[in-house]
């Protein structure tokens, strides 16, 4: 299209992706379609988290995207990372979850808060996809209200003695998991609130058990775990960051993690739309293709519009992060909106498929199921609204 002439360009709004970002999208899309799509149905049916696929994703460079090359990562910007998650989610939510949890929750805390020794010890293998790392935050009785944590680490004879339990921890019990970052109460603060710290627990620590959880509604081809700590002894060197800063580190980690959940909403919505678009041009009812019925065509138009709005919001949040500006509020809005857009889009995509949409053989059924996590994980939609409204009211 010809550029408008005679207008002075004020400001620097630029919606172009860089050539590298375009190429990245193309590469990840091709990879996802060729290496993940053909396996997605079977792996989801069998509830199998494929180590083979993880290693292929590692070879491609997906398992250490934003970590600096110094530690074996790829050094990509936040938006590039989000584009990669979006493209995997367009094909399968479980695999997007594996990659997002690993990058955002597994690697990030070590990369951002770890000391040099910890980074050198863990990051290279994690970035190569040779090993996975969990992020142990949620407990049976504590999620977003992390202050209610029951997992306790006591300082005994120069070691941390950990007791407690974690639940719903992604990537924490595969055959290649090397350990988890565990949030634990390490004491009481002067104001009476619990003092929370993060401790790195390796998989082979005595008294530590990681057990896969099965029969999930969502993300059936991703590994979800329960962690049990019974007098687990961990050396002092495994404390991540400063003692008592665990809560702060967790919040920062989640801000980034929310962008990834939003990307899964965006990518999943895109995938569901494309399936619906294809199906609506194949299947005929009342003598014409579904897409030729105005009702269906309008569904498709609504889906597309919402997806583009979601993409703009999410990319803007990533842009803020990349610019080093505060992005927590935008991350919350993007997470809230993208996950709800996927809900509406997947719902319509199933509707367009009719009875077939209820069958797992049709990817829309999986998109519909997988969507449900996005409104719950890494802070439920209601928690996002708490975050957003606080920003709004504080800003008055």
């Amino acid at each position, binding site marked *: 299209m010809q550029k408008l002439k005679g207008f002075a360009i004020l400001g620097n709004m630029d919606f172009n992706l860089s*050539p*590298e970002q*375009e*190429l*990245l999208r*193309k*590469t990840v899309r*091709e*990879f996802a379609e060729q290496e993940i799509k053909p396996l997605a149905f079977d792996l989801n049916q069998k509830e199998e988290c494929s180590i083979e696929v993880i290693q292929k994703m590692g*070879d*491609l*460079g*997906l398992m250490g*995207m934003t970590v600096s*090359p110094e530690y074996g990562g*790829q*050094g*990509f910007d936040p938006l590039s990372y989000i584009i*990669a998650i979006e493209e995997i989610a367009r094909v399968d939510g479980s695999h997007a979850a594996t990659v997002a949890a690993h990058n955002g929750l597994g690697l990030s805390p070590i990369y951002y808060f770890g000391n040099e020794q910890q980074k050198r010890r863990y990051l290279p293998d994690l970035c190569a996809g040779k090993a996975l790392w969990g992020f142990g935050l949620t407990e049976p009785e504590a999620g977003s209200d992390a202050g209610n944590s029951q997992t306790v680490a006591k300082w005994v004879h120069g070691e941390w003695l950990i007791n407690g339990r974690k639940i719903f921890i992604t990537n924490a019990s595969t055959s290649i998991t090397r350990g988890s970052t565990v949030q634990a109460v390490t004491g009481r603060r002067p104001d009476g609130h619990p003092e929370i710290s993060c401790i790195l627990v390796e998989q082979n620590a005595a008294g530590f058990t990681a057990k896969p959880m099965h029969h999930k509604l969502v993300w059936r081809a991703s590994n979800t775990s329960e962690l049990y700590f019974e007098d687990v002894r961990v050396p002092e060197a495994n404390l991540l960051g400063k003692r008592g800063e665990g809560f702060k580190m967790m919040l920062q980690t989640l801000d980034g993690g929310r962008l990834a959940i939003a990307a899964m909403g965006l990518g999943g919505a895109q995938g569901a739309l494309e399936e619906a678009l294809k199906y609506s041009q194949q299947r005929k009812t009342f003598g014409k293709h579904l897409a030729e019925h105005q009702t269906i065509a309008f569904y498709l138009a609504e889906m597309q519009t919402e997806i583009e709005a979601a993409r703009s919001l999410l990319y803007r949040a990533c842009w803020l992060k990349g610019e080093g500006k505060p992005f927590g509020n935008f991350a919350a809005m993007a997470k809230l909106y993208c996950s709800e857009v996927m809900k509406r889009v997947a719902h319509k995509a199933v509707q367009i498929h009719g009875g077939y949409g209820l069958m797992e053989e049709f990817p829309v059924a999986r998109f519909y199921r997988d969507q449900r996590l996005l409104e719950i994980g890494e802070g439920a939609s209601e928690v996002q609204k708490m975050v957003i409204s606080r920003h709004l009211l504080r800003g008055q």
Partner: protein
Amino acid sequence: MNIVVCMKQVPDTETKIRLKEGNGGIQTDGVKWIINPYCEFAVEEALRIRERNGGQGTVTLVCMGPDRAVESIRTALAMGVDKAIHLNDPLFEGSDNFGVAKILARAIQTIPHDIILCGKQAVDDDASQVPQILAEQLNIPHVMVVEKMEVDVANKKVTTSRRIEGGAKEVLEVPLPAVFGADKGMNEPRYASLPGIMKAKSKEVKKVTAADLGLKPEEIGVAAAKVKIQAYSLPPERQAGKKIEGGDPAQVAHELAKWLREEARVI
């Protein structure tokens, strides 16, 4: 070992081809462009030859095409190609296969080359002529439809295996430098990896024009084309299948034979 890969950007094989009004060729707007799949085998083979050779040598990509070809060049660089020459000049447009080979030959003469890898054909015009003419222009041997290559670096020769009629294989030994036309089955091209994408940012893409190669306007492009395209037409639309009904097999067979002879005129 210096390896040169010639690459062409072509419309995605799933593109629905539409023609321009008149005789202007195909409509290129809205087309998704990809690396010609046979050229992709050539890129992969070049990278593998270098890897087998302990990483020694340079892989240079030579690509003729307009600005949009940069995207495919970047993909090849991200796969691991070291540098690229982008032959980009409006004067090149309308070149026939002879003209393309001539321009490629000029460019390749300016760089060290032991092995020149091409796709055996491009999936857009399927001409399958450029590699051979290129070899002639450079006055070196060529082998087409290559399935397998074994490079003997010390003795500067390559042993190739190619499919020939009847399912047989022909094994040829060729002294270097030489041109090779890559066939399907040669290898499984890699993805442009994420570290590769980052590295590609700093790789050189040299834009080269006709003037840079010392080619005059009358020597290239439409002006010099020996082949003139008379017309473009789309294949006839597929007709609905014909069903011959009836219970008696002999009668059905008779009708089918009649139809094949009189209507389809294939027997």
